[in-house]
């Protein structure tokens, strides 16, 4: 059975200022798939996402999303078509309540579907329901990540892009976020997970792209890649050595 692609990118080049930080990337994500994009700090992961969304100037030979061309559309139009990004900085509305933040997530949807989407988010994150009247700026780091995820889910995206969802969180909270991401994926939402932490990414995703200096240097299923020399030495190596040294 042929895999239906939600996202299909060919030859994506993204500029940040004067330098080209993403240099010709090909990427596909199938419907219902959970794909991860890994790479070290500065590899161009966030720039790639911003190029996809149209925040940074990008050129490509092909950018198809759910059967439509995205190039030329402003970022909010891409969001309205179902390509939703949870940015690294979360970009919450700090002075507004948790509930207001969530409702704004449904800006592009009809009112009728708002309440069902809200119920779904509250069942995924009961903590957000408890804090629904609180200002987003007063939340803890973990709660803010939950809110950013919840806000993104409110629009019932066709594909959700998570930019370093575990960045800056306590290990215990990371566990909660990761298991929620797994839940979201199981419920059928297509995911593109952008991670520096390759262990976490490989535990969740079925397929991976490894990005270095703005180019894909390896791709494949996470099982294949986890066994490959490149990934073992370049990315899993440090922690492997660490476990040898540890008593």
């Amino acid at each position, binding site marked *: 059975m042929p895999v239906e692609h939600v996202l299909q990118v060919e030859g994506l080049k993204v500029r940040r200022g004067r330098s080209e930080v993403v240099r010709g990337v090909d990427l596909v994500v199938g419907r219902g798939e959970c794909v991860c994009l890994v790479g070290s700090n500065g590899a161009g992961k966030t720039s790639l996402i911003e190029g996809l969304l149209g925040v940074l100037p990008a050129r490509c030979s092909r950018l198809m999303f759910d059967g439509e061309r995205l190039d030329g559309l402003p970022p909010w139009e891409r969001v309205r078509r179902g390509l939703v990004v949870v940015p690294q900085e979360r970009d*919450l509305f700090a*002075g507004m309540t948790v509930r207001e933040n969530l409702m704004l997530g449904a*800006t592009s949807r009809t009112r009728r579907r708002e309440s069902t989407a809200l119920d779904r988010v509250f069942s995924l994150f009961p903590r957000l329901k408890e804090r629904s009247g609180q200002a987003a700026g007063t939340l803890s780091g973990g709660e803010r990540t939950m809110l950013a995820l919840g806000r993104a889910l409110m629009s019932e995206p066709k594909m959700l892009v998570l930019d370093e969802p575990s960045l800056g969180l306590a290990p215990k909270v990371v566990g909660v976020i990761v298991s929620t991401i797994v839940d979201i994926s199981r419920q059928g939402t297509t995911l593109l997970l952008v991670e520096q932490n390759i262990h976490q990414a490989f535990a969740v995703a079925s397929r991976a792209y490894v990005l270095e200096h703005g180019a894909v240097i390896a791709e494949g299923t996470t099982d294949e890649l986890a066994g490959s020399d490149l990934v073992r030495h370049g990315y899993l190596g440090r922690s492997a050595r660490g476990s040898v040294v540890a008593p």
Partner: protein
Amino acid sequence: MNATLVQVTLTGLLQGLIYALIGLGLYLIFNVMRVVNFAHGHLVLVGMYGMLILEPRTFGDYLLGLVVMALVAAAIGYLIERFLIEPGLARPGHSQLVITLGLGIVLQYVFQVLFPEPFESIPNPYPWGEAFAAFGVTISMPRIAAGVASLVLGVLISILVYWTRAGSIIRACAESLSGAMHVGVNVRRTYRLTFALGAACAAVAGGLLLPIQPVSPILGLELTIKAFVVVVIGGSGSLWGTAVAGVILGVAEALGSVYAPGSLATSLVYALFFLIILLRPQGIARRVARA
């Protein structure tokens, strides 16, 4: 209590409510777009000269004139944003500052050419008499009506901003532009409409001001500065801060004009401005919670 003091304070309060409405427009534009509109006072003049042209003879005509001026100013504001502000927003630096300042100067000369007669006004359009008098205090009817109307409009705009879906989108853009974009808000359109709303506030305030204060082209810059003072004193916390700041400015100005000698009156207002900046640089109503 001294009747003069009461009269002066009440007059200042009513004038302050008009300043608050002008400031509200500037506040919305500044908070959403981070653009300081130095032509804001000249948009007030658009309302004043517009009413002068319409020359309302009856109360009904006057009300209709206010509505027309609101729509005309909104259209002008939309076009200013679309063609003058928007192209510069993506570029670094603060080109909008120079652009709005230049626009103000251009408008001033346009007014000077079109209306060579200085200090024109319109007669009292309200059907409830010339003035209200009680307990030795006399306040002119246009003043009372303009103050009350400004207050009502301010409350209506607050309702729009805090209790409607459109308002929550405006606030979202003010809170985090990137966040608004990530939830699919058409940021460009929100900018244009916010600028239109701000311009409409200014022009309606101008229409309310005209029966009280004769219009002159040089009034624009003065009103811009007053609106700016109101926004800075009010802080970026809420619309209510802007309203309170408007009243403070109006009362200070009125008291200064009576109790301070001659030309010192105007400087008194700015002395107060600097004092508040020094003591409360965050403004009088700034919220603390920020992420």
